[in-house]
């Protein structure tokens, strides 16, 4: 008995070979680029913007009734209250710190938490805008850095950048504060 065959049917290898080729090409070229772009975005997010960013969601308002700083000029006046000890929990991807922009300041602030090692700087976290009267105690760890960070005690700095609350313009003055960063898993 003869089994009827469709001589016009396209061979299976002609269907699957191009699909397989597309998958291989995507895995080689497209997906790594997407990952690269994502990393670039993460890096850019860590820099301090020229214009004031949105308000930091992790910052909480604190009771502060002290007078504003006596400043005779139209420049800036800031007050910084902080601890120079910072901890990073890699598993939680969380940076714990104590940093307050007291209500007596007349500038908004953005803070970077930076590890310094072998003359290189690694931005572990960056806040959004901290207005006067707000306290910051946690930040999300830089997703790129979290993959490479090892347990230990590191030297680092807070880099504090100031913004005019009315114009959102970055001030010509910034502050560096040496800190100690302990990293745990």
């Amino acid at each position: 008995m003869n089994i009827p065959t469709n001589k016009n049917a396209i061979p299976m290898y002609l269907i699957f070979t191009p699909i397989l080729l597309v998958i291989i090409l995507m895995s080689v070229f497209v997906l790594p680029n997407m990952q690269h772009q994502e990393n670039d975005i993460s890096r850019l997010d860590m820099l301090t913007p020229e214009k004031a960013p949105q308000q930091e969601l992790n910052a909480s308002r604190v009771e502060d009734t002290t007078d504003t700083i006596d400043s005779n000029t139209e420049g800036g006046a800031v007050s910084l209250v902080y601890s120079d000890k910072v901890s990073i929990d890699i598993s939680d991807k969380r940076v714990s710190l104590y940093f307050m922009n007291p209500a007596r300041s007349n500038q908004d602030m953005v803070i970077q938490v930076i590890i310094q090692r072998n003359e290189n700087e690694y931005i572990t976290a960056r806040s959004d805008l901290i207005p006067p009267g707000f306290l910051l105690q946690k930040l999300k760890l830089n997703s790129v850095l979290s993959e490479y960070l090892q347990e230990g005690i590191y030297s680092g700095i807070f880099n504090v950048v100031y913004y005019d609350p009315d114009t959102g313009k970055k001030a010509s003055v910034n502050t560096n504060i040496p800190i100690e960063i302990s990293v745990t898993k």
Partner: protein
Amino acid sequence: MKKILSFILVMTLIFSLSLTVNAANPITTDGGTDTADVTATYIESPDIFAVDITWGTLTYNFVETWLPDIRANSYDWIATEPGVTDKITVSNSSNVRINVSFAYTQDTTTTGVIGLPSVTSFVLNQPEEGGTATSNFTFLKLSGTPSWFLLSHTKVGSITVTITKS
């Protein structure tokens, strides 16, 4: 079985009671007294940094002056209000002594302008309890020739104030 369980329970209760009795110093006579030590531990405050920084507008004029004698221009940097707009003051209300230093960084677009703080660093002692904050100041002077002369409220640089525990 019930008897065994009851025995274990009773023994457990007796044991726990005996612990309590042993831990106390019983008063056995009428009008007797007992004493207990009250202990205290000094917990020192952690380092709390509280620093105020004020600065003037940090605005300058790059002034060109024609000198007929030598038939040439001279150039000078002048703060818009010398002694006020170029002043940076730092006050310490921390419970530690701090070192304050100043470093000027040229802008990457308009280069050639050099910033020189009149005092590049100073130490601010921890203020006395109940006293006023310790403070000091510097004036930022500019010099040099900018890469671009037609300046109009153009950013020429920035200054970093570094606060270190001293």
